[in-house]
């Protein structure tokens, strides 16, 4: 019997790597100074988005697939308790074991406990956003368990003691010579003559991980999809490291957010068309693995799944924001975002960067958590992310909604009016009457004086200083439009 009594419950927010430790403007300002990062990112995002447009245009029914994908996810959210129970029953019936985790800490403890039960102190890992989110690798290290990332980009990031900067290509902020230096410095037994050719670097990673794959007893993965009607899990990848981890070890532990469900096997036909094309701009990714519990004689004998809440139920409680949970982590939104392209992923301070991160992180942590309230403002609201999203998440609308949540949450908390309040008051006074505005416009020539001979204002005082921190303002015109119009009209008479 469920103990739910229909009480209005307060949302329970997520923990782990979802919190920005400093505000987006502050972090972005620092990251903007990194010319290498901007060059790499600009190249990467433009290349992927061009490829994506090309393969998307090949499909005559792309918009119909998006409509189906969006409606399937909407129905998943509406039916989530029922689908979770159905999935659990099917997965368990085929020999899998389900664990539930309220937050990051609990998930980490469950995974560590399962690994400890095997007697092993090493695990191989498939790239997974969920385990990034809960900070699993760091937790396992504290527990004396070594977790080896096996995706090439994750391996680069892990060896460099760095953080991923992109959902799909986490090491995109590093170029080939940086990767070679990291390998030479951190990889045991690497050929000192290693060049920076990508093929040579990939071969070095293969050699480095080969023995690990062939001897690992335990693997940890995420999952891209879970099918409720059969209890099937799916991992989508390219290199074969996923297949290695999912099939060779004796024990497989998967960590997955509760929102990843799809109701039926048929729904996979929609998402396996939407995901690869949106993500890498390929018609299909090289490898997809699907498994349903345990198969006798093929693959791991102990199959576990940790179902993770960690703030997802809180996001679900936000009627406007809940569609952020439709996200299939394809990263199409970040590849078209003018803000992400310039700041990179680290500026967002969460596992989830870019436009989707700007809504998902504050939804999962609550808008008041640390510096996450600045994330909904990390956007020009240009709408490119909405156009690119394969499941039609209306990111701009949710950004605006979260800005209002942020403003509401701060209402009444400040007693002394800020410069912004004063400025807004003044603007409201000036803009409420044509006469007042006209009077103020007489001051325009003063602005030209301030701009000097190069016709640029490089530094504004007070609250307006923020505006000129990273850009110049062109000098105001010699006369206002209204003055010009008045003269023009008179001249024509």
């Amino acid at each position, binding site marked *: 019997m469920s103990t739910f009594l229909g*009480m209005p419950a307060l949302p329970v927010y997520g923990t782990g790597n979802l919190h920005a430790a400093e505000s987006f403007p502050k972090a972005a300002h620092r990251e903007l100074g990194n010319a290498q990062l901007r060059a790499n990112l600009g190249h990467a995002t433009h290349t992927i988005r061009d490829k994506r447009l090309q393969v998307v245009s090949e499909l005559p029914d792309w918009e119909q697939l998006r409509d189906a994908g969006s409606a399937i996810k909407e129905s998943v959210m509406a039916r989530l*308790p029922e689908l979770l129970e159905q999935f659990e029953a099917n997965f368990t019936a085929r020999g899998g074991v389900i664990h539930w985790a309220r937050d990051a800490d609990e998930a980490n403890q469950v995974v560590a406990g399962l690994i400890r039960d095997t007697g092993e102190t090493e695990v191989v890992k498939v790239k997974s956003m969920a385990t990034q989110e809960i900070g699993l690798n760091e937790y396992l290290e504290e527990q004396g368990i070594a977790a080896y990332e096996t995706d090439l980009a994750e391996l680069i990031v892990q060896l460099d003691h760095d953080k991923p900067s992109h959902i799909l290509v986490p090491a995109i902020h590093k170029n080939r010579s940086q990767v070679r230096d990291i390998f030479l410095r951190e990889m045991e037994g690497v050929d000192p003559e290693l060049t920076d050719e990508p093929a040579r670097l*990939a071969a070095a990673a293969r050699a480095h991980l080969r023995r690990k794959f062939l001897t690992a007893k335990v693997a940890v993965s995420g999952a891209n999809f879970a099918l409720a009607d059969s209890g099937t899990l799916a991992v989508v990848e390219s290199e074969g490291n996923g297949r290695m981890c999912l099939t060779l070890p004796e024990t497989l532990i998967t960590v997955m957010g509760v929102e990843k469900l799809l109701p039926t096997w048929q729904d996979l036909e929609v998402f396996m068309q939407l995901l690869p094309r949106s993500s890498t701009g390929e018609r299909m990714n090289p490898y997809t693995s699907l498994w349903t519990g345990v198969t006798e004689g093929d693959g791991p004998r102990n199959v576990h799944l940790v179902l993770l809440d960690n703030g997802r139920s809180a996001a679900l409680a936000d*009627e406007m924001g809940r569609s952020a949970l439709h996200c299939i982590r394809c990263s199409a939104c970040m590849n078209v975002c003018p803000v992400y392209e310039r700041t990179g992923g680290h500026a967002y301070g969460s596992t989830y960067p870019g436009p989707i991160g700007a809504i998902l992180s504050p939804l999962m942590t609550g808008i008041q958590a640390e510096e996450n309230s600045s994330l909904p403002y990390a956007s020009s609201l240009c709408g490119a992310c909405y156009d690119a999203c394969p499941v039609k998440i209306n990111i701009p609308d949710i950004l605006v909604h979260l800005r209002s949540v942020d403003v509401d949450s701060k209402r009444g908390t400040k007693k002394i009016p800020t410069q912004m309040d004063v400025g807004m008051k003044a603007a409201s006074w000036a803009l409420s009457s044509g006469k007042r505005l006209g009077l103020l416009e007489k001051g325009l020539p003063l602005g030209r004086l301030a701009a000097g001979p190069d016709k640029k204002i490089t530094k504004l005082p007070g609250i307006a200083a923020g505006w000129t921190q990273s850009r110049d303002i062109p000098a105001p015109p010699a006369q206002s439009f209204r003055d010009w119009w008045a003269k023009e009209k008179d001249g024509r008479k």
Partner: protein
Amino acid sequence: MSAREDILGRIRAALQDSPEVPEIPREYRAESGMDQDALVHLLVDRLVDYKAQVSVVDAAGVPARVAELLAEARSFVVPAGLDAGWLAGLDGGPGAGRLRPDSAAAPLSVAELDSTDAVVTGSAVAVAETGTIILDGSPNQGRRAITLVPDHHICVVQVADIAGILPEALRRIDGTRPLTMISGPSATSDIELERVEGVHGPRRLDVIIAR
């Protein structure tokens, strides 16, 4: 309260506004309507685009092509249920000491697989539009590990098993089997987005399409 009850309770509370369960519009394509020649042509085009090697042969030509592709392999693994006729072209009978059979009942060890050069399998279904081959663990495809660890995968696709688009292909598959969908050889684009074929999975994928 258990974590399970707690989480399900939170989710039910979050859905107190009883959001509508929408009808799923399925106006996307369910069939490609392509004839067999068009299917083969498209599949070859897409496989080649993924840097797989492809040959289209008559059913009777499969053994010769398999033998040709295995010429340099010092050893190769085959699943127990592979069509024995496909290996008939090998000098001195099937494999002449090079062949290593594998089955769930008598599996090769991972180390044995690692020291094996190639693998020959059949396939369950292929998707022409995406260049994808689906293996479902049937007796002529075997355990997932055998198509993963050896460096060269030779895969025979029967023309009757080619579907035009993904929805047609998935309809022919039992989703509860251990499934592997393969589109070209192993690849990565993680360093400056430059595509490199062959990381951890087989670096060579040879597809024989049998008419």
